[in-house]
């Protein structure tokens, strides 16, 4: 059983490393492809929520009137 546990250790670490190295490679390649061919459009700042808008309006009114 000790031999078997060594087998598991070797196989296990080999698989974990291989798998994650594969992910490193895959994602590096795919990130390159994405960044080159599907670059993200500039996004506008999201519109402020209605509650914030109303507060802003209140402030604006306060300013303009004063």
């Amino acid at each position, binding site marked *: 059983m000790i031999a078997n546990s060594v087998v*598991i250790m070797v196989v296990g670490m080999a698989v974990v490393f291989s798998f994650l190295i594969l992910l490193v490679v895959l994602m590096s390649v795919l990130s390159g492809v994405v960044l080159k061919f599907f670059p993200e459009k500039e996004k506008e700042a999201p519109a402020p929520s209605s509650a914030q808008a109303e507060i802003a309006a209140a402030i604006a009114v306060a300013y303009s009137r004063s």
Partner: protein
Amino acid sequence: MGILDTFVELWKSTGIYGFLTLPGVDGWGRLIMIFIGGVLLYLAIKKGFEPLLLVPIGIGCILSNIPFAGIADHVSLVGLASTQGHESVFQIENVAGGFIGMFYDLGITSGLFPLLIFMGVGAMTDFGPLLANPKTFLLGAAAQFGIFIALFGAVLLGKYVPGIDFDLYAAGSIGIIGGADGPTAIYVASRLKPELLGAIAVAAYSYMALVPIIQPPIMKALTSKEERQIKMEQLRHVTKTEKIIFPLVVLGACILLLPSATPLIGALMFGNLAKECGVTDRLSDTMQNALMNIVTIMLGLAVGSKMSADKFLNLNTLGILVLGLVAFSIGTAAGVLLAKLMNKVSKHPINPLIGAAGVSAVPMAARVANKVGQEANPHNYLLMHAMGPNVAGVIGSAVAAGVLLAIVPLLG
């Protein structure tokens, strides 16, 4: 029956009577386990040890050890069975058993609850820091070394220490504590060695809570102050498209290479896809909140129910606690050491402290890396850098779990 006789019968149904008269661990053992459940509550509530899990586990432990109450009894279907040809029909008229037993039988033995939790974890996880610096995947791989060392240690203990009885299934279940990931540990233990589930889950969550105490000495011992001061380059922005592709790539690789890990990885990546795709926010929100909380309550109670005196009050539990600590420590060390090695090889500087975050224990281990880094250099913010190995460690331990599920039955 008269009043006095009735009082006597009632007395014979009290917990006091049960603790005193039931044979062996089934009597006073229950009282000890109830006390241990109370200790878990104390640690969870006063010390802040993973309270979302340890409060339900503690209560589950207490309720399941009450004499005569049968709250953790197996589910029994009672009704009419009939068979025609090779098709059978079982008409249920009544479901007996305890309510926590029901959670265990239906939610844990089936693997359902840990998978649903993992789905919620996926919906809560941002893999962005990992994608910005994919090399940190390797740190999430190195930290799994603790799993296999602990497995090896469990086999040794089982062979050489009298009173400890671990076969390869037990060893695999114990090793996975080193994954520092609750649902993964519960899933693996419920598949390989359900008898040890209680002790394993308690060890896993306790050590996750103890990460701020366990990790820093190891991290400091293995690094110089200069290394701990290393500043890393700012992470690049990760696009939405990359974040959507990522869960599918991981799932695809897992399908091709390691189907035994696909229940875990599939659930995790489904949750992550629901979060990142931007068109299923309702589902992602439910996975993270209502569903996750409901399942956490039931899973915690069910895990607690496996803390029965006969399974818990023995040397095995002590062995599990020791090995779990070993697994965490080795995982931490392996992560730090690989980071040191990578720093030597890589042209981009890598602070070796972030290697310790590879054990997962999200986000605690990343915070610890950040904190230890700031002790060396108060202007060094490692948190986002450490999140990369941290979430890689979740994938890493799910992969390790897949390996264990695939080969332990072959060798055991």
